[in-house]
């Protein structure tokens, strides 16, 4: 693990430095905006920063792919399947330590917890301001990271299979879009299930709130909808990058 980590650091050095700088900048900007008094402004800015904070998550699969590409091109006999376990653990630890802790620090800095609330609302839920939700938001962060890592893994495995190699790129694109949609539907469904099983926790799915509150909520969360679409787009791009990166890029 130590040597793998050393190689990982060596191969992905620019990404690590980039992510670190990016996160520091996000914390600084969040702290500056925490002085604003207007709730809506804080909410919208908080949403934006929540999304910005998500970006390093997208970097981790890219780093993993870079490492796999490195091993692929070097002709290593390391079974990629075995390697995924170690790398996933590594990325999870990295993510939890960087993004998780940073989220808490940023939230403490901005007092009003806009990051957590807006982060959760990206999954179409409203949430109150309570210590319980800090934990919940942190778990969501970890779950998303796990989901992202594994969805990328599954997509990679699928595209590496003999079956996929015979399909045209249109079919491959359709499958990628299908996987991306399925991923978000499943995530949505899981949270609806949590809300149904634990009604005492005031996580209210959008569909269950009164209409007037929905309208108010929708007007505020328009930014989140756009961000979600962009998030799906980036996910598709990342998945496509795996495919294109793994094969045929030698020329």
């Amino acid at each position: 693990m130590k040597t793998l980590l050393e190689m990982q650091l060596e191969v992905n050095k620019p990404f690590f430095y980039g992510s670190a700088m990016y996160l520091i900048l996000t914390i600084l900007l969040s702290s500056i905006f925490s002085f604003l008094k207007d709730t809506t402004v804080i909410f919208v800015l908080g949403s934006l920063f929540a999304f910005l904070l998500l970006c390093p998550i997208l970097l981790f699969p890219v780093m993993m792919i870079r490492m796999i590409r490195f091993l692929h091109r070097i002709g290593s006999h390391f079974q990629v399947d075995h390697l995924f376990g170690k790398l996933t653990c590594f990325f999870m630890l990295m993510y939890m330590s960087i993004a998780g802790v940073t989220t808490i620090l940023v939230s403490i800095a901005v007092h009003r917890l806009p990051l957590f609330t807006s982060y959760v609302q990206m999954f179409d839920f409203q949430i109150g301001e309570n210590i319980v939700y800090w934990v919940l938001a942190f778990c969501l962060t970890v779950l998303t990271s796990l989901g992202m890592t594994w969805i990328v893994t599954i997509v990679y495995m699928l595209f590496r299979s003999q079956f996929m190699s015979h399909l045209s790129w249109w079919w491959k694109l359709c499958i990628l879009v299908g996987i991306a949609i399925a991923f978000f539907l499943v995530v949505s469904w899981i949270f609806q299930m949590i809300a149904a099983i634990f009604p005492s926790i005031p996580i209210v799915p959008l569909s269950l709130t009164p209409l007037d509150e929905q309208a108010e909520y929708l007007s505020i969360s328009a930014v989140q909808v756009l961000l979600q679409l962009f998030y799906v787009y980036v996910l598709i791009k990342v998945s496509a990058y795996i495919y294109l990166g793994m094969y045929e890029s030698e020329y």
Partner: protein
Amino acid sequence: MNIKFECVTKKVYHKTILSRCSFMIETTGIVGLLGPNSLETTTILRLIAGTMQPNNGKIVLNHTPLHYSHRQEIAYLEHLRMFPSDSNIATVLFMYQQLFSDFDHQKCQILCEQLMIDLQWPLSSLTRGMEASVLIALTLSRKAKLYLLNEPFAGIDFVSRERIVRILQTYRQQDATVIISTNHIELADQIFEHVIFFDGGRMYREYNLTQWQSKGDTTIIDKYREVYE
């Protein structure tokens, strides 16, 4: 090592590089893949190494279809571009040692010394010839059953080429197969035991040089002219 291509087709960006290409290599000697289009021979090496997938057809290694697990028997490194450009050759050797259990670090240092490579050289400062020498040292330092060398003489002067030939003959595993794709055929008579000519995406002709040279009437250069002119 037994390598068999069965009607392999490979397209890159809709351009057909190999078209229903079939051939077989059944030797433990040094095999040359020759042809006017080095893209064909390079693609064959990439397909055997598994860094590319065929569009159609089958590649069989030792009577089993090519699989990821075959990589532990194949030594192949096409270039050093995938390594971080700010690292030096010593770092590359360290990475290689971690990744390949059959990598002999000491042997690689000896080869680097013989090829006059300084381990402290940064990768970004290497010329094409230096890179080719590093690739040879790294590849031959593995205890593999199959060595694949792509254009090992590119950018290297005649004296260094002769040195590389000597190293190839001395330092490879004696029970291993070495496949070399090259356009530098002036040393071919000294190196190859078997040559395969490719043209138009297919195998054109093949010659066993041990039988052929015993007749003593022609060289590979003559044959190359005869085939391609």
